[in-house]
């Protein structure tokens, strides 16, 4: 039986298994890390700015959310991998947020 395989050009790029999407390269990782460092710098700066104190909590939560998302999506590859992993993680995250809100509502933290 004839060999029907076709030789394909060899690439130096890693070939990901079927369950893995294309992961970013080192340059993209470094770019994300720089963004994370800059945002952390902003967080600390905002903490010391007198004029920003009225909006401190929403600003800090926003920065925290952006950093959290960048790490989960890029460094943990949820942006690139199967959505099944994301469903698992979002399930746990939703449970934690629900738990957080229920505890704080029961003890009326928001009203104090």
């Amino acid at each position: 039986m004839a060999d029907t395989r076709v030789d394909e050009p060899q690439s130096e790029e890693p070939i990901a298994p079927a369950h893995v999407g294309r992961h970013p390269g080192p340059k993209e990782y470094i770019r994300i890390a720089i963004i994370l460092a800059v945002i952390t710098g902003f967080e600390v700066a905002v903490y010391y700015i007198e004029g920003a104190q009225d909006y401190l909590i929403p600003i800090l939560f926003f920065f925290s959310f952006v950093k959290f998302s960048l790490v989960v999506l890029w460094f943990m590859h949820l942006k690139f991998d199967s959505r099944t992993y994301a469903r698992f993680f979002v399930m746990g995250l939703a449970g934690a947020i629900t738990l957080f809100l229920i505890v704080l509502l029961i003890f009326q933290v928001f009203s104090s």
Partner: protein
Amino acid sequence: MATVEHTGVVDEHAATSTGLPHLKLAMWLFLASDCLLFGALISTYVLYRGASVEPPYPADVFDIPYTSVSSFVLLASSLTMVLALAAIQRGDVGRSRIWLLATALLGMTFLGGQVYEFTTFVEEGLTLKTSVFGTSFYVLTGFHGTHVAVGVLMLLTLFALSFGGRITQRNALTVELVGLYWHFVDIVWIVIFTVVYLIPTGNPPGAS
């Protein structure tokens, strides 16, 4: 059963019932359950941080510049971790080994910082039994520190295994799993840094 791509890269997990590696699914499930653990601990901290009737209060002990440096160290360790994974995925065991060691060293630096911070707080009068703030603070950050310590042990194990040829491009998934755990520790710290350290807590009425 392993399947071999035409490139020679082996995917040991493609034959699972989901088409996804069970170990990776299990790790994500573990991380989801760990979210609940830290959700409970953070809720408890938020509930009790302003409820102490005796000093020291949060504003008396927290050193934001110092903790900010710790945060930068942990963020840097996440970068070295992904660089270790990227290196092993392209078959560069040597460079992966260096990045794994760098990640472990950064993790140990963070832990050293936490030990110093705890020591300082105890000297300032904040112990596990001083107040509800002290209890909830030490339990939350202590659990996080324990996670970091476990992560450092896993990283050092990978580093040691790489010398015996047991960490290769073929089983890059092992590095990826440890990486997932490490990044999870990082995202938990992102939340702790904001909620515990940066969001101010007013001292109780009557406190100086």
